[in-house]
């Protein structure tokens, strides 16, 4: 549905409405509120900090402004008409020269894809900010304002990223969310791990950002514009700039891929995301699970036509495989961790892998749908983990928590978590089930290098997902009541005096948010059935209306093995893959849950015995060991990148100290001093001796000049 050429550019805020026209267009420039409200909230939070506010005022300011953003986004959606619009908010950079120009305005590209994203970004942002108002209570009067200022910055940047109508504004948002992420991961800046994690996230993201910056340059050189509508028109029409070269255009998808892999934590740049869990849990839920990390998926979906430019679509195949392998790798690591937040982090990496698989398998719809459902169920999982962490003084070890379901006040937490787990595990008829299927099935019907193998890998990963997800739930929420508090006592914990730890259950704000998002996670399955003729329902409609689907039908017709056509139909176990996948993924998820139930609910001692038995056998012991040590990827990076860099930096530091500082700078400084010491006896300070020197010098000069003139040198 190449609707781009139909995009009308609304230069003025309100288009002129002819008299008598019944359909009065609303003033769409109000959409700017989505951007300005979080900025306002940032300023107000800053004021709160300046006036040493000790109340929950910053939280309410942030919640109110984010809710305003959400309402504005909703209003924008209700006024949305299929081709979409470019809404001018403010002028930004407008340059023009003979035969060209460069335009990048603060304007919104409102099509179904950006609407889908902005809706869940602002919606979840509001809810999670409300949750955080209670979660961050121990920091009241300390970092409370700083935290909500960070959340506001994040929402501002994320909205800019999603709604931008040009790559430059997207880049601003892209860097902005990276900065907000750094800000909030390092929120507990007295903790060395948090500081290290913040730096790691920032530095690893920088590698990806380099890719994005280069991709933008190349877009500009190749197509002469950074605005989406012009870009898409140019791609569609095959209009290239004169100065471009073939490899420029060919390199763009790879650079975009690098950017997306950095921001969305894919191989080989995923290492920052698990460490990012050092930030406060609402941040993990909002930034590192639901919204920011899906920016990579958004970028690729938005610029999808770039990936379809060539004939071989090699970049897409790589995206698919990297996604699949990341999913598998992260799932195996997640299986062997004990920290529930880390497990969720690896599960996020793994699910992002699924999304990229969807992108690579020509189903931007599947990817976007999985982003959408994942945003809800992963947010609820993180929020419940946060509630547990909050209530049990920072305890996150699943071996030290058990049977929370039976403790008073933890019902909502446990059942919200159960819903999240069911969705993540792809339990039949939950939202995750449908969205994951949409991606998995494509592996069996799309032709590509080893895509069938990839499909089986992904199915296996889905099973692992179900296992590790329910490992957490059965350990933490089910079983006998038993718990140990963590060592994070933030002052106001009650009941420490008598030595008896009392977990403090979440109260209204946290409970209500967890409940709402859990219901949302279940309800995220509904769009699948909101069918308007297109398979996949509402989300598919949304995605197919946007640039994310441009050109896919043509490619799909060529790449699919007879999909929707007569002749050879891609088959899976002798059935139509679309039907078979419903059974297969349901079965795989079920098996994972049953194994988890066996090992972690009914026979917990068996799990430990199994682990010990595995570790005793040298032939197999490496596997659980490697999984527990995260496949030694951090160590590998340390050895291959950090250590050489460390050595090089010290060598260069030594070179700088000795050669530059001591010999060059110091030496040159010493030279006049040495000469002066040698000449000093000549300086007596008496006027006449100076005058003699002067007169003698003048005579000498005249003599020399005369001499030169004599030989005709100076004439």
């Amino acid at each position: 549905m190449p609707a781009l050429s139909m995009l009308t550019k609304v230069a003025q805020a309100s288009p002129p409405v002819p008299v008598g026209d019944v359909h009065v267009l609303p003033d769409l420039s109000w959409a700017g509120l989505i951007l300005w409200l979080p900025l306002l909230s940032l300023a107000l939070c800053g004021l709160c900090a300046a006036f040493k506010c000790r109340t929950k005022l910053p939280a309410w300011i942030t919640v109110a402004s984010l809710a305003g953003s959400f309402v504005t986004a909703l209003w924008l959606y209700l006024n949305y008409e299929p081709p979409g619009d470019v809404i001018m908010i403010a002028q930004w950079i407008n340059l023009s020269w003979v035969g060209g120009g460069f335009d990048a305005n603060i304007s919104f590209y409102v099509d179904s894809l950006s609407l889908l994203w902005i809706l869940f970004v602002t919606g979840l942002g509001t809810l999670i900010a409300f949750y955080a108002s209670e979660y961050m209570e121990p920091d009241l009067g300390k970092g409370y304002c700083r935290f909500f200022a960070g959340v506001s910055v994040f929402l501002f940047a994320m909205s800019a990223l999603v709604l931008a109508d040009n790559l430059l504004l997207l880049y601003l948002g892209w860097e902005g969310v990276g900065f907000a992420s750094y800000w909030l991961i390092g929120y507990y800046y007295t903790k060395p791990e948090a500081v290290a994690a913040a730096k790691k996230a920032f530095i690893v993201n920088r590698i990806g950002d380099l890719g994005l910056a280069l991709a933008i340059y190349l877009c500009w050189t190749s197509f002469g514009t950074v605005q989406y509508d012009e870009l898409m028109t140019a791609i569609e029409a095959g209009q290239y700039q004169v100065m471009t070269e073939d490899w420029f255009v060919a390199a763009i998808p790879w650079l975009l891929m690098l950017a997306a892999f950095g921001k969305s934590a894919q191989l080989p740049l995923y290492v920052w995301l698990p460490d990012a869990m050092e930030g406060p849990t609402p941040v993990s839920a909002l930034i590192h699970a639901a919204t920011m990390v899906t920016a990579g998926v958004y970028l690729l979906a938005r610029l999808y036509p770039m990936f379809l430019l060539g004939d071989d679509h090699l970049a897409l195949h790589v995206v698919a495989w990297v996604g699949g392998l990341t999913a598998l790798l992260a799932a195996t690591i997640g299986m062997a961790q004990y920290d529930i937040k880390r497990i969720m982090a690896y599960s996020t990496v793994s699910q992002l892998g699924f999304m990229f698989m969807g992108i690579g398998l020509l189903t931007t719809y599947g990817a976007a749908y999985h982003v959408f459902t994942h945003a809800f169920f992963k947010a609820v999982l993180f929020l419940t983990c946060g509630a547990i962490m909050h209530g049990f003084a920072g305890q996150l070890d699943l071996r030290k928590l058990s049977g929370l379901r039976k403790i008073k006040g933890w019902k909502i937490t446990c059942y919200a978590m159960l819903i999240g787990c069911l969705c993540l595990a792809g339990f039949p008829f939950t939202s995750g089930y449908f969205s994951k299927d949409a991606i998995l099935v494509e592996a069996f019907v799309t032709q590509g290098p080893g895509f069938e193998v990839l499909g089986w890998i992904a199915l296996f990963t889905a099973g692992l997902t179900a296992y590790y997800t329910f490992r957490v739930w059965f350990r933490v929420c089910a079983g006998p009541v038993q718990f140990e508090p963590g060592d994070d006592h933030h002052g106001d914990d009650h009941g420490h005096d008598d030595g008896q730890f009392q977990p403090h259950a979440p109260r209204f704000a946290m409970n209500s948010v967890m409940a709402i998002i859990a219901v949302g996670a279940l309800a995220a399955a509904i769009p699948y059935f909101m069918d308007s003729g297109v398979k996949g329902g509402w989300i598919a409609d949304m995605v197919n209306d946007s640039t994310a689907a441009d050109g896919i039908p043509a490619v799909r017709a060529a790449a699919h093995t007879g999909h929707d056509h007569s002749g050879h139909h891609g088959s899976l176990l002798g059935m139509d893959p679309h039907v078979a996948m419903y059974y297969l993924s349901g079965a795989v998820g079920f098996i994972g849950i049953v194994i988890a139930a066996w090992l972690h609910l009914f026979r917990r001692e068996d799990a430990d015995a199994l682990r010990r038995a595995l570790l005793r056998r040298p032939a197999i012991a490496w596997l659980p060991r490697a999984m527990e040590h995260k496949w030694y990827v951090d160590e590998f990076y340390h050895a291959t990148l950090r250590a050489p860099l460390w050595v090089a930096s010290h060598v260069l530091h030594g070179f700088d100290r000795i050669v530059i500082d001591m010999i060059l700078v110091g030496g040159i400084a010493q030279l006049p001093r040495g000469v002066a010491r040698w000449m000093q006896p000549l300086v007596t300070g008496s006027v006449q001796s100076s005058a003699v020197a002067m007169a003698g010098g003048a005579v000498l000069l005249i003599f020399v000049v005369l001499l030169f003139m004599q030989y005709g040198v100076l004439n």
Partner: protein
Amino acid sequence: MSAALDMLLAQAMVEADLARFLVLSGLLLAVGLAGFLTRRNLIVMFLCTELMFQAAVIAFVACGRWYWDFSGQVFVIFVLTIAAAEAALALALVVLLYRRRGTLDAETWTELHE
């Protein structure tokens, strides 16, 4: 005939005159320099600098006349003006220096040493 001869004569006189004036100027400079380098009295040293100034002035005037170019004369007016201003400053300095040390001996001022 006599007009041409007159011109030649005048030419010869001027040529001879330039050399004389320049020698005079050089002598004056030498006297001034010698005085400046040998005398210890600040006022005498200052007068010697004035002498050297006048040597330069004579050279200017002579050359201006020789090249039939009035820049030399004009320059002299400037030099005299500046010399007057400088004389005022220098004498004021000498007075201050005398107040500091109670003597006009230049050898008492060697602070620039080291």
